[in-house]
């Protein structure tokens, strides 16, 4: 296991370093912004400035950057063990696939945790360094007292914790999908497109039933899907309680984090189940089974069917539904051809 972990760290070192540089950059941005705020308008006591607000903005941006990096990391982690490119080193080790997957996950999740801890330290240091000045400015402001209640270290830690849960879920989802799609690169791509396809389809369905109860419901579901899984709109208003438990018990906000935790547990258990059932090399087709291939084809066909709706929206085309069957057939032919070709190249 130790050797495996060392090997994982070694092969993923560039990505781990990029993660760390990113954390330092984002932490530095916060520090710079806080100092700048102090030097410009906070000093005057006329505008609001909260470190936690900037942390929220930074983490929003960091989420997308980290998601991309996570994709790259998962690709490199699994490239070595998938059908098409098995590492000689790993083959030579007397370990089970379970041990391999555990070591990979330990390195992946460990990297996320270490990097996020680094970022949290940066954020807290910034808070400590600037809070004294900001408090002075707040003393002049009408709402200063209220801002002080929000802008706390526990609030920062809680926000980073939620962000961490989001990123871990992204990572584990990508790992899980490695057991569904044969090739590492294709798996990452399909995972990304698959995740995007959910709001993509829901928005269309909501539009179909627009101005009705069902339309509103689907719209709500779409918004909450995006909110839950993309660290969207996690704002300071939810960090009213000083403690984590207080935060959890506050209103309904804890449920978003509960979804993430259950999602993570689902991914972990599925990974182990799939590892037992499929492993890294038991792929019979593009996906792990032919039935799964059919599901993929169906998904692509549905998404292609909807495509004219979005194209018409962008270019204001009337009667877009005429093009929907053509688009659906086109989509089906493309994915079908792709799968057949992949099967023919048969590794």
């Amino acid at each position, binding site marked *: 296991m130790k050797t495996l972990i060392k090997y994982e760290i070694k092969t993923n070192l560039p990505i781990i370093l990029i993660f760390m540089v990113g954390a330092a950059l984002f932490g530095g941005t916060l520090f710079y912004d806080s100092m700048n705020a102090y030097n410009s308008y906070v000093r005057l006591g006329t505008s609001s400035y909260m470190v936690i607000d900037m942390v929220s903005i930074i983490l929003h941006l960091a989420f997308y950057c980290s998601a991309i990096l996570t994709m790259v990391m998962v690709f490199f982690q699994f490239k070595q063990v998938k059908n098409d490119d098995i590492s000689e080193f790993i083959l030579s080790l007397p370990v089970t696939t379970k041990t391999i997957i555990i070591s990979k996950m330990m390195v992946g999740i460990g990297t996320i945790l270490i990097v996020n801890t680094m970022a949290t330290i940066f954020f807290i240091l910034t808070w400590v360094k600037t809070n004294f000045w900001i408090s002075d400015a707040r003393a002049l402001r*009408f709402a200063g007292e209220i801002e002080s209640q*929000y802008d706390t270290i526990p609030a920062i830690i809680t926000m980073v914790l939620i962000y961490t849960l989001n990123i871990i879920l992204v990572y584990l989802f990508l790992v899980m999908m490695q057991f569904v799609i044969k090739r590492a690169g294709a798996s990452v791509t399909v995972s990304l497109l698959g995740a995007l396809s959910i709001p993509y389809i829901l928005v269309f369905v909501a539009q179909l039933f627009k101005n009705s109860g069902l339309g509103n419901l689907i719209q*709500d579901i779409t918004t909450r*899907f995006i909110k839950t899984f993309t660290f969207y709109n996690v704002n300071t208003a*939810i960090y009213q309680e000083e403690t984590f438990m207080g935060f959890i018990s506050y209103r309904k906000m804890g*449920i978003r984090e509960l979804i993430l935790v*259950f999602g993570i547990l*689902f991914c972990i*258990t599925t990974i182990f*189940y799939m590892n037992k059932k499929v492993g890294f090399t038991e792929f019979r087709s593009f996906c792990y089974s032919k039935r799964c291939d059919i599901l993929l084809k169906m998904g692509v066909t549905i998404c292609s069917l909807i495509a004219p709706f979005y194209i018409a929206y962008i270019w204001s085309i009337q009667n877009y539904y005429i093009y929907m069957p053509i688009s659906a057939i086109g989509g089906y032919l493309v994915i079908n051809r792709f799968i057949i070709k992949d099967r023919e190249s048969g590794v």
Partner: protein
Amino acid sequence: MKWSILFFILTMASFGTYALLEDEIDIVLVDAHRESENSEAEFITDTISVETLGNIEFYSKMTELADVLWDIMYNKHNIDMTIWTDAVYGNVYSYFGYYNPGDTDEIELILQTIEEYLKIHNLELTVTQDLDGNEFFKYTDDEYHVEFYTGEIESLPHNTTFFDSYSIINRHYNYTNYVGLIVRPIELDFSDYTRQVDIEPALKQQMQQIYQRVSTDGLFVENFMFGGTRQAVRYRQALSSIRLNMTLEMEDNQICKVGIAGSCTAPELTITQIDMIQKMMNELGMQDCSTVITKINEILQNNNVSNYEISEEGFKYKLWVTGDYNSYDDRYFRLNIEKPK
């Protein structure tokens, strides 16, 4: 396998619960003054104790207004209260704006929203006249009473509330047309309201209802925001009086905050406002309120004092004055009364 299924069900169940929960918005703040850069709504978020509010959705543009109106009409969100600032005509939920035809399609959005709503609910607009003789559209359904006004500003009689408001705004803008929109829950019937009579008792009763509703829902709105016209000042006077009376019934550790902002703080209306504060404090038996009033006057005269604080036995007054009182865009006045903790 069974664990995967279990966690999948739990994930879906918790997501389903989350998706089906009422929206987290508790209070919608709409800054009806689309021209205002230094918005009154910003003032509200400063003034209201956020602790008691929960999440705030904040709208300040006409395009957003159409959306929020739609939501309110459908009661999609579990909104406990909507505060629309600059309540022209003294209504709690109102919009009054100015525009030049052809310049913007935002007004169209409002119209479309109303039209669609009417169509779905099979409602018809009726044309009626307000007390100034202006024609306006009106409809009422089970939940909401909506009035919609539009026309040329010049067609407004100069003694109307609309014109009052316009005269202030037109210092900076040259709009030719106006649009007025009033949306209120049917339970808050302002039909007794007439500009010519003293409506305070009726208003007090109605605002008590708001208070009851809000406090029943576990929220306490610690701010009143009214502006625009002399009529609005009258409303504010009534409401603030009620508010302060309510304050006395509050628990010791709660804080009362009274905020006043908007066009009502224009220099020409400030005197009324000071009178109002004087009256409120007298009603509450604050004998030493003269100190505060004197200070307000001093600050107004000096015109540019950033803040002032004075402590009195029993109550702590914080008085904040920001900006230049002669400038439309940066003119607000704050009085914060805190009960001692």
